[in-house]
């Protein structure tokens, strides 16, 4: 009851819905960057939405199954293959004992989610099976997969009779970033510290995802630097206007070191620090960030608290729609 890792892919980790509740000691939530895709993959193979699955970045792994299983791949458009035969994405398909699951080249998106019926059976650490590689915590030995790893599949896995091959998530419920990608943002706590003109330009500019884009945060470049309002820095904040007295960062918060390149903190976020924040990307759009490739044109779209809450409810409705379609 295991999966042999023949090739690991570029950066493949075990992820579930993460481990909230330890941020105050510096341990981030981790979990799937695109949680909606993770949930969809799990529901397709008959798992609970939050079961542990694999997150593969830019390049898929090559995996040999030692037992029958139902598999689904969602998120990035990276065609799955069983013994070389291409399978549809967002659709459940069987993999027999001895068969090899591999992937074609990435066509769109950034992260594919590979769910296996029963889930990946790594130990639960602080309430979650998610991998936090920087802290070497959770997942498979706290790290990304390597060739030769043997991933345990949960007992009772193997193709379930209740789940039939070929069922898929309806096209209209598959969420993807547009072109340019649009990230809705609530202007934040320190918004008053940049000039009005700089604030307008921030939302008018088309930014590009920088190469430094990972699970900790996504950096954006190519927009204009922020101009700061003249002010006296409070004690403890240092003299650079982009510095603040060290504060906690919520997930999704947009910090701008030096006022030049915004960084959106993601699932493996650092929990606090002293760089200025312009706002917070709404939780409904955090999934989309996980699907952005470097150089993707991106705009930040200003929203109100009411719009952010409505978006959160819409996202929940999409998830419920997927669950209902697969019930």
């Amino acid at each position, binding site marked *: 009851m295991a999966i042999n890792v023949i090739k690991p892919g570029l950066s493949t980790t075990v992820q579930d819905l993460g481990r909230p509740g330890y941020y105050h000691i*510096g341990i981030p939530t981790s979990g799937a960057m695109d949680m909606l895709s993770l949930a969809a993959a799990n529901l397709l193979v008959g798992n609970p939405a939050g079961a542990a699955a694999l997150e593969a970045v830019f390049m898929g792994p090559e995996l040999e199954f030692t037992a029958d299983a139902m598999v689904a791949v969602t998120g990035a458009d990276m065609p799955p293959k069983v013994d070389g035969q291409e399978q549809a994405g967002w659709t459940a398909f069987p993999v027999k004992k001895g068969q090899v699951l591999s992937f074609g080249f990435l066509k769109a998106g950034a992260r594919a989610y590979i769910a296996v019926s029963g889930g990946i059976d790594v130990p639960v650490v602080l309430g979650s099976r998610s991998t936090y590689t920087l802290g070497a915590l959770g997942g498979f030995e706290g790290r990304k997969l390597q060739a030769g790893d043997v991933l345990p599949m949960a007992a009772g896995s193997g193709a379930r009779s209740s789940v039939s091959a070929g069922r898929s998530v309806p096209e209209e419920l598959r969420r993807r970033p547009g072109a340019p990608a649009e990230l809705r943002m609530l202007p934040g706590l320190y918004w008053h510290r940049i000039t009005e003109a700089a604030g307008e330009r921030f939302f008018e500019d088309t930014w590009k995802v920088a190469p430094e884009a990972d699970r900790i945060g996504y950096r954006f470049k190519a927009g204009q630097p922020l101009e700061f309002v003249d002010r006296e820095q409070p004690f403890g904040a240092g003299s650079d206007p982009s510095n603040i007295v060290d504060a906690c960062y919520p*997930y999704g918060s947009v910090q701008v070191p030096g006022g030049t390149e915004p960084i959106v903190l993601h699932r493996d976020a650092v929990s606090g620090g002293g760089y200025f924040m312009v706002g917070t990307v709404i939780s409904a759009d955090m999934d989309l960030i996980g699907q952005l490739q470097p150089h993707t044109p991106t705009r930040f779209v200003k929203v109100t608290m009411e719009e952010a809450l409505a978006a959160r409810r819409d996202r929940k409705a999409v998830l419920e729609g997927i669950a209902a379609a697969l019930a």
Partner: protein
Amino acid sequence: MVPHLVPVAERAVLAEFGEAATEAVHQAVLALDRALRDRPVEGQLEVVPGMVNLLVVFDPLVTDHGAVADALRARMSALSGSRGAGRLHEIAVCYEGAFGRDLQAVAERTGQDAEAVIAAHLAGEYRVYMYGFAPGYAYLSGVPEALHLPRKPAPVRGVPAGSVIIAGAQCLVTTLTMPTGWWVIGRSPDRILTGEGARPFLFDVDDRVRFRRIGEAEFRSREAGA
């Protein structure tokens, strides 16, 4: 002390007790932190104390900003007193060679020589203000004014675990190889992240810390023994 409650995300509120990092402000932050850990508000997911503010992350589909704000105000009006002084820890630090890669830059920017920077750093009395940034990153207050510098304009990647770093009035001993925009003045062989189940970290918030200078030979032998 009455905090200013700022909705910083549709899922989070920041309770701000002031702008300047003073002792009274920080004690108020810690008092509210204790109250919320003892008795969480409905829908509460994370509580993260900072220097001057406290972040409360909640599920907006279970509760809302208004209800969380009311609950925070109720907790504030029934706060307990201070916990009292923490324990004293002595941490070894080697300032030599590559361990103190920014020592010279700090000396130049603060108008003194490297020995004076080391002496000033050793003279500091430090307190654990908060955990943040990454596992085991204990923020220490109390860097002498002669060493106060802003952070670097952008973080530098790959700074090794154990680095002793400073920025403004703050000092920190890193526990992981991570990016930092702070100034690297030395390295400690002591492990802040102990990994022990019930007490994964060496320090508690409010504990006090003093630094003791060691040479490279002692660093190597302590590291081998750690």
